[in-house]
């Protein structure tokens, strides 16, 4: 399980020593590394195996990084690409990032800098590329441009029809949008479909999780920095605003930003210009901003935690994501959709839900919303033995859930019926981890930083664990 989930990296560099040393360094940091000394052999390796990330030198004997990037992005859009180069050329860096490179590292290489960039790429890339692919495109809506909105919003309930209407309405405009809704209701998917259905869909959609930004890092994440502008600024960094230029910048959990950063954001949004930290040059911006929050920003404003002027800047249009429990029949439509995607992903053939499961799903409160439903179905598809998902495949908190007013059964009795002895130690351990992680995540409304703290593991470990048990 762990080996299969270990992140696979391909290093393409004609300088054999660099390839060797990088490979040693990354292997010892837990990655599964392959190397190639030319563009052609790199592409051959890509043909034969899936890689999460490619580290590619810009200057190769048979081709160059630009061409490699183009090839990789065309044939393996899910694979992240970081270009390494000896030339510090900002124009080229911007061009490569617009072409889809995750980042651009200038030589000389420093091990810590590389590790940092790679770790971030793995996290962000996962958010940027894998999620939407799983959520929408795997089944039938592979066309990324004129994307059929119904691929994103699945459902026939009044709430989801209204949501669809609002997205259609606002997508073609240039309005900033606030997306409100509980955790797991699909805010990022909504933002993405606004982007894909806007005239900006040829330009980048850049997603940023403001919940996980430290105060120190936030400014350079937003605005970028010049190499050497502060201790630890090993390389020039392009900020997210610049990356999203021409396209859409999506800020998730925007309520978590510090007051100072909010001031800087406001200035950037008003002036439509950005300056990298340590630089005097202003760069013109044309970025549409979509923000999401599961907090009450109005309350934040009253308490002085969120700037009112910034709120009004963002709030040219607002969209409310309905919680799953209010979406009636959509629950089973979504459940069937996720069962199909899970079958494909896990190579299983589970085709239906037992009547008890359907009843359970319809009554449950779904505090984690669509994300919770998706995770539960993936888990159930994985552990189900027949081709039907039965109540046994559900976590206890769901199979034991009783509508509050009818809850006369002591919890212990209900547990007796559903809990089967599990003799496989590996499964038992995995399930126990799964349940604990999910429980803690829910308690902290899916704030991964907080969850990691409570679980007493670091954030990276949490991400790895979540991946290992297919939790997203």
């Amino acid at each position, binding site marked *: 399980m762990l080996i299969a989930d270990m992140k696979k990296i391909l290093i393409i560099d004609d*300088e054999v*020593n*660099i390839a060797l*040393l*990088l490979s*040693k*360094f990354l292997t*010892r940091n837990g990655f599964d590394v392959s190397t190639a000394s030319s563009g052609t052999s790199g592409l051959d390796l890509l043909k034969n195996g899936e890689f999460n990330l490619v580290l590619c030198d810009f*200057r190769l004997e048979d081709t160059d990084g630009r061409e490699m990037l183009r090839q990789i992005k065309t044939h393996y859009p899910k694979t992240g690409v970081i270009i390494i180069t*000896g*030339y*510090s050329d900002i124009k080229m860096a911007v061009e490569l990032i617009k072409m889809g490179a995750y980042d651009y590292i*200038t*030589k*000389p*290489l*420093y*091990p810590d800098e590389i590790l940092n960039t790679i770790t971030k790429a793995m996290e962000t890339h996962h958010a940027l590329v894998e999620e939407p692919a799983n959520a929408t495109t795997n089944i039938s809506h592979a066309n990324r441009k004129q994307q059929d909105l119904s691929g994103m919003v699945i459902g026939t309930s009044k709430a989801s029809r209204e949501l669809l209407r609002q997205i259609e309405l606002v997508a073609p405009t240039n309005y900033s949008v606030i997306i409100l809704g509980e955790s797991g209701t699909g805010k990022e998917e909504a933002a993405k479909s606004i982007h894909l259905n806007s005239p900006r869909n040829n330009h980048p959609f850049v997603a940023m999780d403001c919940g996980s930004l430290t105060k120190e890092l936030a400014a350079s994440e937003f605005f970028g920095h010049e190499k050497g502008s502060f201790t630890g600024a090993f390389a020039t960094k392009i900020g997210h605003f610049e990356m999203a230029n021409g396209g859409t910048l999506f800020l998730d959990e925007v309520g978590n930003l510090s007051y100072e950063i909010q001031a800087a954001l406001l200035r950037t949004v008003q002036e439509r210009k950005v300056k990298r930290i340590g630089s005097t040059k202003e760069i013109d911006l044309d970025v549409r901003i979509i923000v999401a929050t599961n907090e009450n920003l109005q309350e934040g404003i009253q308490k002085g935690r969120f700037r009112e002027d910034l709120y009004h800047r963002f709030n040219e249009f607002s969209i409310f994501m309905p919680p799953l429990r209010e979406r009636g029949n959509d629950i089973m439509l979504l459940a069937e959709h996720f069962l199909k995607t899970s079958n494909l992903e896990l190579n299983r053939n589970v085709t239906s839900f037992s009547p008890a499961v359907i009843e359970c799903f319809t009554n449950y409160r779904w505090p984690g919303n669509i994300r919770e439903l998706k995770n539960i179905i993936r888990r159930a598809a994985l552990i189900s033995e027949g081709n039907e998902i039965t109540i046994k495949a559900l976590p206890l908190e769901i199979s034991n859930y009783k509508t509050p007013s009818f809850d006369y059964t002591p919890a212990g009795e209900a547990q007796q019926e559903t809990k089967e002895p599990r003799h496989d130690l590996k499964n038992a351990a995995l399930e126990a981890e799964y349940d604990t992680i999910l429980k803690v995540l829910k308690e902290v409304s899916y704030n991964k930083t907080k969850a990691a703290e409570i679980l007493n593991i670091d954030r990276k470990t949490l991400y790895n664990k979540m991946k290992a048990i297919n939790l997203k």
Partner: protein
Amino acid sequence: MEPGGKGIDAGTLRTIRHDIKNQLSNINLALGQLKYEMQNASPDQQEYLEMIAASAAKIDTILKTTE
């Protein structure tokens, strides 16, 4: 490039700089590996490693000031 090293053109200079940076990458990465493998290095050994690292950093700085 003429014999005697006079009049190096910008293109050549750029290539030289690039090649030096390549070699600096090697030095940095090899140093990282050495430090990792020499967990029990003596204080002297550690100092030599630091000296190499500092010189590599210095070369990089020199390159930058001529860019």
